[in-house]
């Protein structure tokens, strides 16, 4: 299963970004393997309507879950409609650590 972690930078050692729509990077991990790929968020500094467009990036990349700090109302609607599960993590840490916590089942799904 593909999970997306919002990130301040392009690598798994970068810090997780707490904002969803304005995260500079989205890093996609496969829970079945070791590989990951980073996608730069073209809407990070957009004027408005960035949430649904960021959600589109996740949909297009086949994510089934996202780990982030917070999600705005429009993005929430788009992620829910696309069936992407949302997990909130609000302690600072690296992307790699966030993915590990997700894999270990330490995060609870936002409802």
């Amino acid at each position, binding site marked *: 299963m593909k999970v997306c972690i919002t990130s301040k930078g392009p690598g798994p050692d970068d810090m997780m970004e707490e904002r969803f729509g304005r995260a500079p990077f989205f890093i996609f991990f496969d829970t079945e393997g070791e590989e990951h790929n980073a996608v730069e968020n073209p*809407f990070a500094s*957009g004027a*408005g*309507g*960035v*949430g*649904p*467009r960021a*959600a*589109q990036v996740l*949909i*297009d990349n086949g994510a089934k879950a996202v780990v982030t700090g917070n999600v705005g109302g*429009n993005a929430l*609607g*788009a992620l829910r*409609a*696309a069936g992407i599960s949302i997990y909130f993590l609000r302690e600072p840490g690296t992307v790699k650590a966030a993915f590990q916590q997700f894999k270990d089942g330490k995060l609870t799904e936002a409802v």
Partner: protein
Amino acid sequence: MNIIVASGKGGTGKTLVAANLAYALSDQKEVLLVDCDVEEPNLHLFFPQGGYELPVTTPVPVFDADRCTGCGRCAEVCRYGAITVLKEPPPLFFEKLCHSCGGCEMSCPEGAIHEEERAIGKIRFSNPRDNIILISGILDEGEVMAPRVIAAAKSYAGGHPTTILDASPGIACPVVEAMQGADYCILVTESTPFGLHDLALAESVTRCLGIPSGVIINRFSEEDDQVTDFCRSKDLPVLMTIPFDREIARIQNTGGLISESMPAYREKFADLFSRVTSAGGFSR
């Protein structure tokens, strides 16, 4: 002659100026007042009214799920993030983000998008006093497309020879929409650092739009010469000063008009109009 009253800072007295200017002129001619502060219209507080209303609508896309192939072209074209394309058609549409540009309908290769009108506000028309017609733009609660409602209110105003428009505070899209096409802009400020700061912003907008302007300093303090210095430096005429006066506040706060209760102000506002018309290059 279209005169717009704007300010930058909120609460400086735009509506006081618009309402009293209209009243002072109404014994000479018919005046059309347009409340362009559609998020919080308040001119009707000075001119209680019945009147009638017409809806304001905006076109938004409607998706035909049977024709949509989920290609995603509409979402790529949408600059406002109003469309998210899911695995299964139809796309998810966020009506509050839509700017009604029509790009999605034009770009859909399947012809799966057509537009329908969605109500976002209303225009209220009334004739509260002899020679005063009031057109108020009202944006529905929770809606964001203020410029649409302002444009509708202005279109109903048509080419009335004496139109006074009351803008919203700030210098964002709604103010620019309200200012477009004005012959003269009265900038209302106050003798405070915030008043001066936002006056400078508003003045830069009128300059960009090429609208001649002048300043009214409300709650005027003789000790504060920053605003007058600024006006001098920008070659902006100070059209009128209104003192920080308890009686003015009392009349204003009960929904009264100082140009009605204090005859000196009736003259001041009438005189203001003749100076503004000559500055705007118009004869009376």
